[in-house]
């Protein structure tokens, strides 16, 4: 089974993040850029499937030159090779345009399975996997907390607010995963050293047959009009126990979807 894993470089969600003042795109210059956390789970899932069923795992990244370091990091976990789409014209691309580029790149790799994180910590739109599936005309099994591969049949437990749904599809398909699906491995030192020598194919938009004006800020289907800082955290809710403390606690947890 040949698998493509989508890996995005994002600003570290653990530190201060912001938008550039001039064009309101994600500020990557001053940020500590890392692999999107959820993508590490996608990589782990791909590697587990490869270990059980064989085949090749390819990392696919659309992003600026500096994303190359995240690609190396992804490769250090174990994938065989990578494809990196880099083009200045991509700066400021919307989700629709990004999915077009990703779909074109995936088309060149023709995998049996595409695995991605369910969302990225910078964009958080959760639509890219669906858009790619739509563009490629294949099934989308999104928000998985469990994935079982049986020949050409994929069975997914799809995490929902209330519980989970069991969904199946035949390959080729796109599966997006949550961080409940596995425990990503740490790269071994040998993995880190081996990653240096793994092939990374770099492609431009022209290589993919996409015109510059179909992507980027100018070709975007949506625009960020205004952005502001999140208001400071409000004081928490105090539950006074008048005999019904337990009930109130559960009601609160339920309203926040913890239970």
């Amino acid at each position, binding site marked *: 089974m040949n698998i493509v894993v989508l890996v995005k470089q994002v600003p570290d969600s653990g530190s201060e993040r912001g938008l550039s003042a001039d064009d309101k795109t994600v500020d990557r210059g001053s940020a500590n850029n890392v692999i999107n956390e959820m993508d590490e789970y996608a990589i782990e899932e791909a590697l587990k499937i490869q270990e059980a069923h064989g085949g090749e795992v390819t990392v696919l990244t659309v992003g600026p030159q500096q994303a190359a370091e995240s690609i*190396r*990091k992804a490769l250090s976990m174990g994938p065989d090779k990578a494809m990196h789409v880099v083009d200045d014209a991509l700066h400021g691309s919307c989700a629709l345009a990004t999915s077009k580029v990703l779909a074109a790149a995936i088309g060149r790799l023709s995998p049996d399975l595409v695995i991605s994180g369910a969302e990225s910590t910078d964009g958080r739109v959760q639509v890219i996997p669906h858009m790619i599936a739509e563009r490629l005309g294949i099934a989308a099994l999104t928000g998985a907390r469990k994935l079982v591969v049986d020949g050409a049949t994929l069975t997914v437990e799809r995490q929902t607010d209330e519980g989970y749904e069991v969904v199946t599809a035949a390959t080729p398909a796109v599966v997006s995963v949550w961080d409940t699906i596995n425990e990503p491995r740490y790269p*071994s*030192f040998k993995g*880190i050293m081996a990653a240096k020598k793994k092939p990374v194919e770099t492609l431009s938009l022209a290589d993919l047959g996409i015109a510059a004006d179909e992507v980027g800020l100018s070709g975007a289907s949506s625009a960020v009009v205004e952005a502001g800082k999140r208001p400071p955290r409000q004081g928490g809710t105090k539950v006074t126990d008048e005999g019904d403390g337990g009930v109130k606690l559960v009601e609160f947890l339920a309203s926040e979807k913890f239970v």
Partner: protein
Amino acid sequence: MDFTYTPEQRQLRDAVSALGRKYGHGYFVEKAKAGQHTTELWAEAGKLGYLGVNVPAEYGGGGGGITELAIVCEELAAAGCPLLLLVVSPAIAATVIARHGSAEQRTELLPGFADGSLTVAFAITEPEAGSNAHRLATVARRDGDDWLLSGRKCFISGVDQADRILVVARTTDAATGRLKPALFLVPTDAPGLTKSKLDMEIVSPENQWLLYLDDVRVPAGALIGDEDAGLPALFSGLNPERITVAAMSAGTARYALSRAADYAAKRAVWGKPIGTHQGVAHPLAHAQIQVELARLMIAKAASLYDAGSDLEAGVAANMAKYASAEAAALAVDTAIQVHGGNGMTTEYGVATLLGAVRAGRIAPVSREMILNFVAQHVLGQDKSY
């Protein structure tokens, strides 16, 4: 001059840091207080090849250098898990065996260092010979093809966790009749070898031991290299030891300072965070500078060592060890002060480092002996001893 690490070294740093944080200082302290070892962490780090980064690739190791091993030591310590056995086993013992062991010893032992499945303690210190290694009284006598070792060792770390001990003994030079050092690998369960645990005021899952060797019989193959290899073999372990112990201190200091910085930014006693008072912030900033200076010297020493400049590396390694031990003691003391009463609790996890960083100014080589070294070898002073 280039002050950047390679992308691979940066990735190693990130990976080890992530593994260390998965366990954390709470785990380290819990194990120490329960009299247990950090077996899970050691095994996982070993499996990932972090404990064998410096073992030659042909023996299954990472093929890196002391720069890489120092990164491992520093990042585990910076995550709250300063493991002294990293200094003893992969830094000293693996280096000595890789550089001076026979072909059989390398083939037999290095794969175990590569994946951390083999732990070797290092025993040089004796009750009557601490700083002065010329007074070592543990002797090795030939008995047929075997050797018989007798003597006492003290403060030997990790004997209960080790498979073998690299013992520094002395043999009689056939030509001159004088005693000269020789290194032997002694199994920890060898007949005639007994140990007793020293009670130490250090919160650590690793223990120090007194060793008694009473005619411990080892085969000819237990001698590292040959009888003349003793001194160079001993010296080959010194730079890796100093550099990695310095890295461990620097990591411990970073851990303490990051705890203190977090605390100072949040704790408000007069309405504002205490970190806004310069009386609190300046000591932290001062300690931070000392730690960064030490890290710079550690990087220099490791880089020189990996480039094969043993002599130059020696000066840098000693200075790095000195600077780092002083910086770590300062950092932990400052971190405790910033925490107020909480600084002395187990929960806040800074006073738990006091014993370890204080010991760092004594072991494996004391600050005074480093000052002696610099006074004599850099400043050209005669010595009084």
